């Protein structure tokens, strides 16, 4: 299939009869083209909005792409499908990467991405579960997503449903005490239908994590809290997909995938540049960035 136009994917979605993994036939090369398109959307939409968070959206592109185009069992035509796998974006400021991915899957038209952050748009500055098809959680107040995910995972167990719950955390977000309350509870309740992914891009608003609030030894912290830890290159789709597959084999224990990423990945002047945490590219910067992402 041609991946040059997102409309092709939407068409494939509408033909979906509810089978699991509607996009799972995509090759890694095809997914890489999708990821590039998602990056272009992130640049265009934040550029047009004149505000937003491109840095932490770009770092999470492969994580979110691998989930929606390979791992998740979901139906874009039926966002409330009870048996869907859940993806919960805890770092709600990375809304652009989620919106772009949902649009590419066909949850809503790609054209709508241009309305980001505008009055009356369904695409709020931070995610809003009451407005956007496919958004599971109203996030933006950091630290709350892992607790929410534990609740969703426990409900699945109580209902004997076999869906899996994926929650994306920021590394800086792990400064929040609630993350560690939830980490404790996940292991205590032995939720093995839960996978946390940390977008470990090393930067938070005030600078490098290690300078602002050191999280090391990060891997050992999660282990000490009772988690099975997998570390991957968060921009390598093959490694990510492999990690998600391995996570399914872990029983009676939650799994965290620490995905090593680069903030602003894919755009030379945004990479590792904390200025683009919460600042949109100018019109000129959008042009340069889109050129780099051709």
């Amino acid at each position, binding site marked *: 299939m041609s991946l040059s136009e997102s409309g092709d994917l939407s068409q494939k979605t509408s033909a979906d009869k509810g089978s699991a993994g509607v996009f799972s036939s995509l090759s890694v090369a095809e997914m890489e083209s999708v990821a590039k398109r998602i990056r272009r959307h992130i640049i265009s939409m934040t550029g047009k909005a004149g505000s937003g968070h491109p840095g932490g959206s770009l770092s999470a592109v492969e994580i979110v792409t691998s989930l929606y185009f390979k791992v998740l069992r979901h139906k874009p035509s039926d966002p409330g499908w*009870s048996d869907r796998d859940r993806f919960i974006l805890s770092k709600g400021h990375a809304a652009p990467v989620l919106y772009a991915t949902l649009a590419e899957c066909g949850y809503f038209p790609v054209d709508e991405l241009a309305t980001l952050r505008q009055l009356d748009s369904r695409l709020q500055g931070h995610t*809003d*579960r*009451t407005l956007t098809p496919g958004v*599971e*959680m*109203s*996030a*933006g*107040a950091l*630290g*709350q*997503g*892992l*607790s*929410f*995910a*534990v*609740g*969703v*995972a*426990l*409900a*699945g167990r*109580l*209902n004997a449903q076999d869906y899996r719950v994926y929650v994306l955390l920021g590394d800086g977000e792990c400064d929040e*005490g*609630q993350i560690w*309350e*939830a980490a*404790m*509870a996940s292991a*205590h*309740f032995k939720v093995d239908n839960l996978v946390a992914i940390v977008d470990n891009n090393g930067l938070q608003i005030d600078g490098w994590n290690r300078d602002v609030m050191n999280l090391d030894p990060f891997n050992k912290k999660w282990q000490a809290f009772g988690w099975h830890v997998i570390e991957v290159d968060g921009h390598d789709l093959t490694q990510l997909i492999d990690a998600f597959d391995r996570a399914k084999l872990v029983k009676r224990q939650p799994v965290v995938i620490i995905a090593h990423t680069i903030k602003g990945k894919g755009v030379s002047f945004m990479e590792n540049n904390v200025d683009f945490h919460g600042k949109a590219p100018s019109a000129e910067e959008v042009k340069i960035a889109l050129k780099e992402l051709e």
Partner: protein
Amino acid sequence: MSPEASIREVYGKTLVELGRENRDIVALDADLCRSTMTQFFAQEFPERFFDCGIAEQNMIGIAAGLAASGKIPFASTFAVFIPGRCFDQIRMSIAQPRLNVKLVATHGGISVGEDGTSHQAIEDLSLIGALPGFTVIVPADAIETAQVIRVAANNYGPFYIRLCRPKVPIVYSEDYRFVLGKAATMRQGNEVTIIAIGIMVAAAIEAADNLRQEGINCRVLNMPTLKPIDKDAIIKAAADTGAIVTAEEHLEHGGLGSAVAQVVATHQPVPMEFVAIKDTYAKSGKAAELLQRYGLTAKDIERAVGSVMKRK
């Protein structure tokens, strides 16, 4: 003196009944299940009970996730911790998405007693009442509590229910029917209206009965649903009696008095007096001593009635 009963115990037992009727009812606690009385639910439905340890913020998030997946979670701890400690979690994980979570907070107010300031929730109604979409209820006795818990379970949306620690007098007969968002008339009267909530309802009735001896005819309204408040009953009381006294076990800012005053000022301005905790924290002491020290007795209501009637 009316017989007394523990409204916390009624909560715990009602929750068990609901659990038997509906398998989607789940309960959460934060290491206080023997005080909040969710212990009864925990004993009968261990697989549907989640003790979150001393981690209230996480409990709120887990409750939200359960509700987002179709469960009806009842989450309990002391009223100083929900909403106080978890305000942002309640705001973003429950209130904004309007999830079907029932927060039942026990040990509200200063009648907690000897534990002192750190355990006396005197600002919880103001905090939770500030959140769009929350229904806020403070039952007056055990009979009302049983019905309030059932109504919360059977009506979609976020609820905050505040219960107190001590046993309280029964103010209702068994045939009382709680109606969500409606005041209940406890005493008829046409010279002044006392609007009370929670444990202050019994005090308001006592005050009205004392004042009747002196020839003052007080209407007494119980306002169990603080939000959405019964505007019609307030407007009617203002129009019929021309003066209003509110009584609550809460700071005078942001609770019942503020809510009633807003309705009165907008629709039917009449003189008002406020029986509530002034701008201060309370201290350790027995419940009755504290209620007296901080001005929350029948005598305080009677004095407020005297003041407000002079301003008619």
